[in-house]
């Protein structure tokens, strides 16, 4: 298998410097499939579509082998703190 949970985490960490990151392997044996939650300062002032593009771009290499990627959350730290409160 070309893509691992650790690989996805490493790429997102290095590209988006998240303050919170959760990568869940959702593959049911059919190949690399992940759900991600990303909280990053870099999302500040960006629309949801742009934020998702940033995640996709950060995983450009992995996307070649990823079967399915679900971006569950792409929040700014302020939004994240608010939702946790």
């Amino acid at each position, binding site marked *: 298998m070309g893509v691992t949970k650790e690989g996805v985490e490493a790429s997102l960490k290095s590209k988006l410097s998240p303050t919170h990151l959760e990568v869940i392997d959702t593959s049911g044996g059919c190949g690399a499939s992940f759900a991600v939650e990303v909280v990053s300062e870099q999302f500040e002032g960006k629309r*949801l*579509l742009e934020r*998702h*593009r940033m995640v*996709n771009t950060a995983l*450009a290499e992995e*996307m070649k082998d990823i079967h*399915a990627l*679900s*971006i569950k959350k792409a929040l700014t730290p302020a939004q994240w703190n608010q939702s946790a409160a």
Partner: protein
Amino acid sequence: TFRCYSALNPELKTTLDKVVTSNKVILFMKGTKDFPQCGFSNTVVQILKSLDVPFETLDILENEILRQALKEYSAWPTFPQLYIDGEFFGGCDITVESLGKNGTRIPFVPQWGGRL
């Protein structure tokens, strides 16, 4: 990065310009609205149906050239891909987040002035 092969030639781009504006709401998906062949595509179909908006679908499994070209055209790596008013709106997660959750129907209507 160096790309040695591009599916999106100028003619194809012109065609896609026409296709994405051919309907107010158009969904490029795996399967058809009556027979979605992937859970993500099905989710978007169900949301659009629940919003009671007219929409067209195009099955990218039927056309590999279209499939590859759209990825470049939208700069989006996966399907489904939803277009509204000729503009790329997002994939499944964005549609769920923006249109699919309880209560989003209220901002949804004024945002497009009920034109959908």
